[in-house]
């Protein structure tokens, strides 16, 4: 592996923080609607199943990281599959990461436009967000992971506390009937909602930057378990406080319920500002992770030691991709597409590479 100018290593806890903050995105604001439409009051089960499914899929990526502890996907795919197919996969990976960054920033701007900055041009929200991300990214992986580590508690505790204030209004019989959905529908819904747990695929690029890659499975287990519980909590609270039927129609149910709750004691009548601040942080960290993985992939593919250059080069392209969807409904469709692409990138391609490396006996021992 070529030495990069910035070869800082990240600890296991930083890896967990990076994974959680990358996975936790504004997509969760729409998640209750998606699962309610698929399985009604059984929707929360989909979250649970999708979390478990995603953990097992992410073990493929984990196995690759363990097998090639000093290489990124760009290098080992070329070693395993040969120069040209590996190169081709590398380009797909870059495009994917840039596309996901663009979609995350776009969804963020949609939420901002809907709930707070109604008249602010969308392009402006996107541009400021991207520029901020580009700034932190130019300093390399360590600051990004550190930002994740610092922001994680700032993000998670208030989110839990905020949704807990909805409890007095909650009616948990909304979660009934239990298991009334056919198994087939549940299975399909699980797969369709698994994309909400995407984000772990950054390990394809970030793997060799871990200080102790042999503990990658623990990092994945912890991050996935955490995210699953958090999503489950939010979906259950949303269902119980506004009902499954209302959840089906609201574009961003997890945001809309913030407007129906009032902090106890009437200290804060409105929690919207807090909620939007939290989701801004969540989107920021997601964009950081995805965008950084993309630029890293490009640097490795080009074989240059300087990745900062790509941060700047990709900026206008990410911006342009993010302006493709015409309206929120269009954005929804595009995020569905990006979800499918994500499953291919994060599960199917790594599985092929892993299988091929086992057959051709490449790479280190899969201890």
């Amino acid at each position, binding site marked *: 592996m070529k030495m990069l100018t910035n070869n800082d290593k990240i600890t296991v806890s930083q890896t967990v923080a990076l994974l959680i903050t990358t996975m936790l995105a504004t997509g969760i604001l729409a998640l209750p609607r998606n699962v309610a439409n698929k399985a009604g009051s059984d929707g929360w089960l989909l979250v649970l199943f999708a979390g478990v499914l995603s953990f097992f899929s992410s073990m493929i990526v984990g196995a690759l990281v363990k097998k090639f502890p000093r290489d990124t996907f760009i290098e080992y795919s070329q070693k395993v599959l040969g120069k040209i197919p590996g190169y081709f996969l590398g380009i797909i990976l870059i495009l994917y990461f840039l596309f996901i960054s663009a979609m995350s920033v776009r969804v963020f701007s949609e939420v901002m436009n809907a709930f707070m900055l109604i008249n602010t041009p969308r392009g402006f929200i996107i541009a400021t967000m991207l520029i901020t991300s580009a700034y932190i990214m130019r300093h390399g992986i360590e600051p990004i992971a550190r930002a994740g580590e610092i922001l994680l508690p700032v993000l998670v505790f208030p989110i839990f506390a905020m949704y807990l204030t909805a409890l007095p209004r909650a009616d948990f019989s909304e979660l009934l009937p239990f298991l009334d959905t056919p198994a087939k529908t549940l299975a399909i819904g699980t797969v369709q909602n698994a994309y909400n747990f995407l984000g772990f695929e950054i390990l394809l690029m970030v793997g060799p930057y871990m200080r102790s890659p042999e503990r990658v499975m623990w990092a994945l287990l912890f991050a996935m378990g955490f995210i699953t519980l958090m999503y489950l909590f939010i979906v259950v609270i949303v269902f119980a406080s506004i009902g499954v039927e209302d959840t089906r129609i609201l574009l961003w149910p997890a945001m*809309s319920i913030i407007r129906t709750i009032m902090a106890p004691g009437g200290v804060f009548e409105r929690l919207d500002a807090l909620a939007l601040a939290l989701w801004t942080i969540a989107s920021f960290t997601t964009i950081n992770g995805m965008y950084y993985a993309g630029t890293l992939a490009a640097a490795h593919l080009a074989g240059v030691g300087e990745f900062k250059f790509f941060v700047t080069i990709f900026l206008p392209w990410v911006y342009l991709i993010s302006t493709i969807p015409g309206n929120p409904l269009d954005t929804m469709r595009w995020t569905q597409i990006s979800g499918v692409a994500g499953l291919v990138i994060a599960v199917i391609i790594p599985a092929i590479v892993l299988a091929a490396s086992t057959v051709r006996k490449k790479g280190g021992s899969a201890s």
Partner: protein
Amino acid sequence: MILSGKFFRRCLLFLLAALAFAFATACWDYRDIDKRIFVGGVGIDKSAQDGRLEISFLIPVVRAIAGGEGGGGGGGGGEKPVIVESTIADTITEGARNLALRLNRDLFFEHMRIVIIGEEAARQGMEEIINPFMRQTEFNRRSRIAISEGEAGKIMGIKTTIEKLPSAYLESIYGNASLSGKFVEGDLGDFLHQIHESGGNALVGKVIPGADEVNIGGGAVVKHFKLAGWLSEEEIQGINFFLGKITGGSITVDDPRGKGKCTFVMLNAHRRLQLISAGAVPEFQLKVLAEGNVVETTEGVSMDVQDEEIIERLVSEKIRTEIFKGIARLQNDYRVDLLKLGEFLHRYHPKLWRNYEDRWEDIFPDVRISVSVTADIKNIGVTK
């Protein structure tokens, strides 16, 4: 040279900082608070023009309120604390835009406290009226909603005496659930929830305008997004018992010696609904446990254990009658399931529900419900 490296860098830094200030003001969504009008309530009526709505906005005049409360007395004296602006439009948003031609400030709905829909408009159909409250984030789901007997505009126009602002008065009167169970408690969020859960049926608050006050007793029945009719105070109390929504209120019965009246004030009430049999028509059993205090007896009556039992029996009889009155009205007159029996079946007996789901509207009026009520006296005050 003047453009030496250090100096140039400093200039650049200064320029960038200045630029940052220019961009950091969030100018697009910035509005001065004194350029806004905070709408306190919205009233929606059918207008004389066919198919259009007459929309009244209840607007507090901040200057008058502040002046009056400042203790100046004479200072803000003559000014009215609120104005009502009405306009004719097809939709609420169009109505708000119409006002831009007459008022110099922006209408701002974030702090809206109450929505009142006029009887005529509600009878015509509420689907299009309530839509903006769902779609736009500016309307908050915590504001109250009610249907007025007669015109909603009349309610907007009342001159309240105790509260300065009619919107605050109208909102807080709906918070009196711990004092009375004879009205429908719930906000816009609850209302939208009911409407979507049942495909257009809901129990909504009723409000009757008076000269300087309103009466919120009773309730309105909305069926298929249209106002079907009213329920009396007693019927609403019965339905509230049925739904387990009672958190207060009183029941007055004849006292055990037959000399006068005796008042039982409820602390809370629990209920349990069970499905007994599920033939062609399901049969339910409702058990209500009402707990409360005896607060008034007619002069001269001192109670002993027997009397307590008699009062408990009388109170539970009375509650039972009220519940049956409510049920009968919904089953026979309105034929609409506001008792949430369908929802109950759907949640607890999903397989059975599938048999009834399609014809539920025809089945509901024939559903048999048996009711048993237990009243429990917790306290009798400090006289015997």
